[in-house]
């Protein structure tokens, strides 16, 4: 019996989803615990004492930057959400970067690429179905973090209107997730040793994070901020009304598009070692 091409593509997609299900579940569980542990602690302005507020206000920028509290007011639910969503963002970037690299690299690692490529599918359609599976994971991560935060915010701070802030922050997070996802697929397709891609991508995430902190600490290092996507959609500036800046959205979309194109080209030309 002949299996149609479409069915095979769908098969690869479903197989990838299944292969990643356990990992995704662990990530989502961790995500919910993080958001619940953080936002669940919100008690409102009336609970914090005057002296603590005064000390927080006098705190130097360096320290606030390190705590992820620069420009955020922990007396408000927005401030809480700002701190937590940035932590979620770092983890989301690591998750998507690893996912993108591993989903491409694992065929060679598990020596299944030969098997996969004797099937009547083109390399392009294999990549496409893998990318769709990865996208599904990334979007689920994003949606769940949005929903969990939204539900907890509604419970602990009744009547607050966080929705538009949350939407903006989530869109910004999705753009950053996509950037690292496709950086991962691009490296895994392009590097001779595709197994190294996830280490490099997560390393880039880490360096971006530390660059972000340094650019926040000292005027002289502020110029570094263009180099780190974490600075593009800072929760603090979105909460303080800045929205998503078009220029940064454009930069991320262009970079992501380049990574996607490069992924297809590299994978097409790749010698599949096994």
């Amino acid at each position, binding site marked *: 019996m002949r299996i149609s091409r479409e069915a095979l593509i769908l098969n690869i997609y479903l197989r990838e989803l299944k292969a990643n299900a356990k990992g995704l579940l662990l990530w989502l569980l961790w995500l919910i615990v993080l958001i619940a542990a*953080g936002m669940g602690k919100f008690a409102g302005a009336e609970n914090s004492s005057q002296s603590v507020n005064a000390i927080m206000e*006098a705190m*130097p920028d360096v320290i606030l930057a390190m705590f992820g509290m620069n420009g955020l007011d922990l007396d408000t639910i927005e401030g809480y959400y700002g*701190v937590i969503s940035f932590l979620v963002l770092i983890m989301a970037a690591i998750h998507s970067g690893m996912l993108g690299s591993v989903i491409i690299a694992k065929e060679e690692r598990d020596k299944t690429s030969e098997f996969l490529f004797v099937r009547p599918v083109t390399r392009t359609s294999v990549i496409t179905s893998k990318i769709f599976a990865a996208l599904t994971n990334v979007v689920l991560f994003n949606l769940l973090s949005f929903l969990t935060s939204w539900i907890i915010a509604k419970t602990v701070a009744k009547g607050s209107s966080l929705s538009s802030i949350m939407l903006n922050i989530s869109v910004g997070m999705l753009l950053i997730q996509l950037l690292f996802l496709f950086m991962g697929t691009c490296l895994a397709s392009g590097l001779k040793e595709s*197994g190294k891609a*996830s280490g490099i991508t997560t390393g880039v995430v*880490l360096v971006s994070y530390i660059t972000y902190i340094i650019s926040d600490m000292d005027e002289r290092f502020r110029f570094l901020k263009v180099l780190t996507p974490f600075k593009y959609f800072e929760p603090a500036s979105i909460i303080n009304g800045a929205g998503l800046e078009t220029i940064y959205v454009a930069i991320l979309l262009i970079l992501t598009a380049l990574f996607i194109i490069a992924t297809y080209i590299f994978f097409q030309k790749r010698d599949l070692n096994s």
Partner: protein
Amino acid sequence: MNIFLHELKSNLKSAVIWALSMLLLALIFILIYPSFAQGEVEMKNLLAGYPPQVLKAFGFDLNILFSPLGFYSLVFQYIVLCGSIQAMILGCSLISKEFTKKTADFLMTKPVSRVSVISAKTSAGLSSLIITYVLVVGLTWVLLISLISQPIDFGAYMKISITFFLIEMMFFAIGVFVAVTVRKVKSVTGISIGIVVGFFVLGLLVSSGIDVDLRYLVPFKYYDYIKILGGNGFELNFVIINILFVLITISVSYVIYIKSDIHAA
């Protein structure tokens, strides 16, 4: 001894690269110190109306906070973050490499016991870690005293630096444990960065005051540097948890490794 030397040699280059990256980070932070120190007067003025007890209760002493080591102890957490990632990678990669590269069965045909294989590998990993550690701690001290004109207490610096090693050991142990339980670790670097940064992020919830109870779960928050610099010493319960955690995790990993079946490719 052969396994030990083989592993040490293959890791030496990366140990030096790790040290250089952490030293670069330390250098940048030390260059930031002067502008941080300028904030002292402003903060003292803003808080002039508050009695010192209130500040103490809040957990810091401004004189310590703005001193070179006070600042260093704050930014030091990013160096500890990098060191912990290195530690977990070292703990994890040496053993899991045998499983992924299918050499475990090869190694087992050699006339060495499993105990000596895992011991050789962990001590090689540990040696690389110590090489990086000594380079970072030693050369950062040189950077501190040559770039900052104020006197810096070497004893206090060493106290802070010892916690670095204690925390690294926890992640080293976690790495060994992950390697013997998961075995075919898909991407050692990726998973190590994921887990260590995960703990770091929880630590940020502790330091921003959002969830202080999490402190026991986060190795990065075991040592309160401002208190250590203030002469209060270490909090003994955390030192004990730290050391016990390392010993138990490593012992359990040994048992799992020795009892595990090694499958041929």
